[in-house]
């Protein structure tokens, strides 16, 4: 039996639409850390976009009934629409380089026929260390231990 997918059909449609329109984005944050095995808990999937408000991004979102909402006094920037509720927008990552540099070293995860780019665990850890908020301090040891486990697992396989 195939492994259950964490995304609903609509959420998959949204990701596929962004990829089909060649919108440059990657998965970051704790959901990205979950891909390489970090035992963390998260309620949303953070997406780091290179350029917000790009016409291709608007088209991709429109196709699935979503929209980009710029920040206002009361709300942060967000993706609106029921298909987009799981996703949060990120435009800057503490402690990391430019989007264009970071995307070169990200990990690719197969999503149907397309490839979803995911920030590597090493870079997520670097970002958490730089941000160093109370909530980051809780996850930093878990991310470090996951790197050790992944390295150990790799060595034990050899």
């Amino acid at each position, binding site marked *: 039996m195939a*492994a*259950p*997918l*964490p995304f609903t059909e609509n959420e998959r449609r949204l990701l596929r639409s962004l990829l089909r329109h060649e919108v440059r984005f990657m998965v970051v944050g*704790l*959901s990205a850390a*979950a*891909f*390489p*095995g*970090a*035992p*963390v*808990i*998260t*309620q*949303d*999937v953070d997406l780091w976009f290179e350029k917000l408000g790009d016409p291709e991004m608007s088209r991709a979102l429109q196709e699935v009934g979503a929209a980009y909402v710029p920040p206002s006094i009361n709300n942060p920037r967000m993706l609106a629409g029921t298909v987009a509720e*799981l996703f949060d927008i990120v435009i800057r990552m503490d402690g990391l380089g430019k989007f264009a540099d970071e995307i070169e070293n990200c990990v690719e*995860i197969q999503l149907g026929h397309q490839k979803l780019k995911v920030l590597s665990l090493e870079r997520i850890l670097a970002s958490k260390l730089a941000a160093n908020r109370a909530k980051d301090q809780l996850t930093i*040891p*878990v991310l*470090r*231990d*996951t790197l*050790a*486990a*992944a*390295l*150990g*697992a790799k060595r*034990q396989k050899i």
Partner: protein
Amino acid sequence: MKRLAAQSDKDIKARRWARRLSMRVKKIVAAHPGADPDNIRHALILLELPPFARLQRSLIRGRAAAIYRK
């Protein structure tokens, strides 16, 4: 009898898997003395799953936690 034999076979496999896991955790903790064995064990278990299944677990836990808070 067949059912008992099958159960004990599963049991043996499970015990073997647990023993192997515990040895792997020990080795990794020995190489990384500051590491938390629980984190290592959970990460090794997750590494046996496909990437999307790992995210599924993280999101289910996150969503469940949100439900409990309500």
